[in-house]
């Protein structure tokens, strides 16, 4: 079940499971907090992902064998309660339209859905934050309803505008800044999620939940959205 492996000269990787599971992000976040509390002097950084936690520790203070044994000990005795306290629900407004959703028209045809049905399927669901990474604040959310899942584009776009909301298989996400990428773009938010606003650093954490809601083109423009 739990497994600790070597990741580098001053890092270990802890696996909490072998496949993607909605119970894991919260478990990993809870364990990360316990680690920080227990070994605050030894830990430099923690990087959670879907099934794992990368632990970067201070090799000047503790060596690999001692540290892995201590972490193993904490793991063995840890009670994974999977509580959702300390988990935030974050709302994100999205203008789902053909101008903002570059792949929307194609997806509607492929999925045999009308726009309202598509919007309802995407925005009805509360998504779980599984991982953050790839680039700053890029937040991997799951799981997308099977009816609107779509694989990544064969050829990634060179430039996707900041705020674009995309789907890749069972995942959905917002691009915080202009970037290249291969996700299917279905809409755009007016919320600035880039680091131009430094508070965005702490906007999401793994185990949080996100809900999208639909806004009109007028509301999008009114709040500073650009098409």
């Amino acid at each position, binding site marked *: 079940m739990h497994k600790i492996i*070597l990741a*580098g*000269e001053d890092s270990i990787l802890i696996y909490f499971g072998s496949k993607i599971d909605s119970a894991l992000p919260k478990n990993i976040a809870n364990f990360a907090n316990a680690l920080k509390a227990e070994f605050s002097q030894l830990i*430099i950084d923690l990087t959670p992902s879907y099934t794992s936690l*990368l632990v970067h520790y201070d090799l*000047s203070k503790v060596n690999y064998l001692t540290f892995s044994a201590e972490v193993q000990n904490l793991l063995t005795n840890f009670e994974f309660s999977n509580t959702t306290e300390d988990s935030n629900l974050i709302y994100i407004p999205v203008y789902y339209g053909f101008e903002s959703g570059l792949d929307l028209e194609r997806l509607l045809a492929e999925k045999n859905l009308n726009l309202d049905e598509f919007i309802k399927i995407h925005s009805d669901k509360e998504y779980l934050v599984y991982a953050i990474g790839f*680039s700053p604040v890029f937040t991997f959310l799951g799981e997308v309803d099977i009816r609107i899942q779509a694989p990544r584009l064969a050829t990634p776009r060179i430039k996707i505008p900041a705020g674009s909301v995309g789907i890749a298989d069972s995942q959905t996400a917002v691009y915080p800044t202009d970037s290249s990428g291969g996700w299917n773009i279905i809409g755009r938010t007016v919320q600035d999620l880039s680091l131009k606003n430094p508070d965005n650093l702490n906007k999401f954490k793994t185990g949080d939940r996100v809900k999208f809601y639909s806004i009109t083109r007028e509301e999008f423009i009114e709040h500073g959205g650009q098409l």
Partner: protein
Amino acid sequence: MSFKVIKPGFLATIQDYGRFTHGAHGLSQSGVMDEHAYGWANHLLENSPTDAVLEITFGGVELQALDDCAISVCGADLDFKVNNQTALSWHSVQIQKGDVLSWTLPKHGIRAYLAVKGGFDTEVLFDSRSVNLRENIGSKLKADEMLICDSSNIEFDHFIAPQYIPNYDKDIVLRLLPSYQYHQFSKAQRVLFFNQTYTISNANDRAGCRLNGVPIAIEKSKMISEGMSYGSVEIATDGLPIVLLKDAPTIGGYPKIGTVFSLDLAKLAQKQPHAKVRFELMDIHQAQKQRLKFNQFFGLD
């Protein structure tokens, strides 16, 4: 008080020891590519070992001192000159107001570090002064920009004995820890990996160094994304290695055959495309012992 940028060069950025504690937010470690040269640059000025320096890649940089300032230049030989006269590298140097410092082209190695007494006083962004262009954190050097630092005059004369100055033209061996998916690669795959000489490709930057060679046959090339350590070696879909460096993404989904020892990454940071590298296994205890010695010497512990 400061330096004025006359020529910004090809790629020159302010870097420090790195941006830690933001892995959970998707921010990469960043920081200097050659920790060895960086360590010496600060050490020769009796600076803090984590002070910010200017990382100059390939050269093309020209700065004018607006005040007296003690400096040191370590790392690559980019034909460093003061007022058009060849100047000392790996040596503390007193600069006078009005002096012009220049780095023209790479003669040996590719990255030089300019340290100033007390460190460069640029804006701290997410707990570090390191610029990360991939993440839009800070920007590269621009013409007419001012680089702020204290004015200083030093009495001391610090330098490195010539035998300790690295020879960046030597072929390098990257010592690799058997980490991550090492044990999931078959014996045949590992033999192919360790018994060949790779060539550094043109596609290499501060995020990663792609290597050309005989591809390793891969059946399943994607896995669940997980946190990636500095120096971990991805085997991409094409079967070729990518050594992940300071500006690499925090998480990724290619299998990793191991992790290169940090002080060998410092040597890799000085290599041009087409240079040859090989891999060799290293034991974690050896790696920790050697890194600890380095940290203790430079006061990083």
